[in-house]
């Protein structure tokens, strides 16, 4: 068990927030002070980055404890932003945490593609395929791109076109993010992953390519 060496805490950027740090968290768990651990909002400030575990001589999985503590929070008490993002992703087949529907996504991609083709010299024939069957790559994309900065998708398309990659987006399951994991909602987390895997398999793509 824990050697109280403090390596976890000295390398944790969340040490000191809310008077908590990973060593203290582990010690309190070992001493049966679970009630306090289930109350502290620190579990939402730890990013579950796993650096503490990486440097721990005993390889103690502190973020797993943090995850468990998150699970003990009643859903309505968990940070609203995280839960709302999870809920939004469950409501659409795209799994987008920003609630982008399949048709919205298709519209943004086509619109952006049209703009590039008509305004940028040398890119009259650039492609951004949607739902192409049997492609080598199924590309995912963070929702922030289509929603807040669609222009940022273009450099990615240009690179893929440049190398002649055989790729496609899917109008379903394209979103890269999974806030249900952060919300510590196991069932929803799994549902999101399954939706995405299904989308890749339905199109018969060989490789699910993560763009971030």
């Amino acid at each position, binding site marked *: 068990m824990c050697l109280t060496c403090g390596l976890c805490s000295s390398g944790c950027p969340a040490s000191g927030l809310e008077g908590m740090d990973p060593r203290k968290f582990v010690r309190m768990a070992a001493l049966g002070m679970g009630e306090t651990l289930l109350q502290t909002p620190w579990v939402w400030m730890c*990013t579950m980055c*796993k650096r503490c575990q990486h440097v721990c001589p005993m390889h103690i999985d502190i973020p797993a404890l943090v995850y468990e503590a998150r699970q003990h929070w009643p859903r309505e008490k968990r940070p609203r932003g*995280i839960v709302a993002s999870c809920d939004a992703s469950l409501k659409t087949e795209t799994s987008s945490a920003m609630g982008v529907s399949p048709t919205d996504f298709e519209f943004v991609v086509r619109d952006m593609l049209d703009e*590039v083709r008509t305004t940028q010299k040398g890119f009259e024939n650039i492609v951004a395929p949607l739902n192409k069957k049997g492609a080598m790559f199924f590309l995912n994309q963070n929702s922030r791109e289509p929603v807040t900065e669609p222009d*940022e998708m273009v*450099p990615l398309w240009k690179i893929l076109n440049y190398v002649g990659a055989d790729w496609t987006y899917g109008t379903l399951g394209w979103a890269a993010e999974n806030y249900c994991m952060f919300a510590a909602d196991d069932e929803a987390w799994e549902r999101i992953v399954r939706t995405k895997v299904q989308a890749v398999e339905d199109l018969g793509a060989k490789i*699910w390519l*993560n*763009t*971030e």
Partner: protein
Amino acid sequence: MESIITWYARWIREGKLPVTSDWNAELRLKFTVQDPCQLVRKSLGDSIANDLRFVVKKLVGEENFVDMHPNKSNNYCCGGGGGALQAGFPEQRRAYGLRKRNQILATGAHYCIAPCHNCHSQIHDLAEYYGKKWHTIHLWTLICLSLGILGENERAYLGDELAALGL
């Protein structure tokens, strides 16, 4: 699931993506890179971190790349992970990010490349909040800049010295 960074590295090695750092020969802009926890420590490990460095060095010139310390699997989280960007504790999120800010400042880099959207949002926010000492960019921006195919509207995160380069 695979990472596009592995493929960038492969395409560069195969000559399909003939990027160069010529554009930076005189500018000598310094670049550092964030190793996303999700991608490096939590999934693909140092091999993807090495691919990332291979790609970045080709893009900016070996002598213009400055690593953070610690780095790769041992890197610090930017503070935007685990849902932190949506958790509603901005003050604590930025306090967490202080360590990343100090790490970036210690490199003296003009640009921090953040090849994960979460890291990009957090590191960009840290730069805005703590005095705009560096620019935060996506990796694809730099690849297209190097290939001379970066469009006018695709430069939102570039600084003045690169805003019109190659247009």
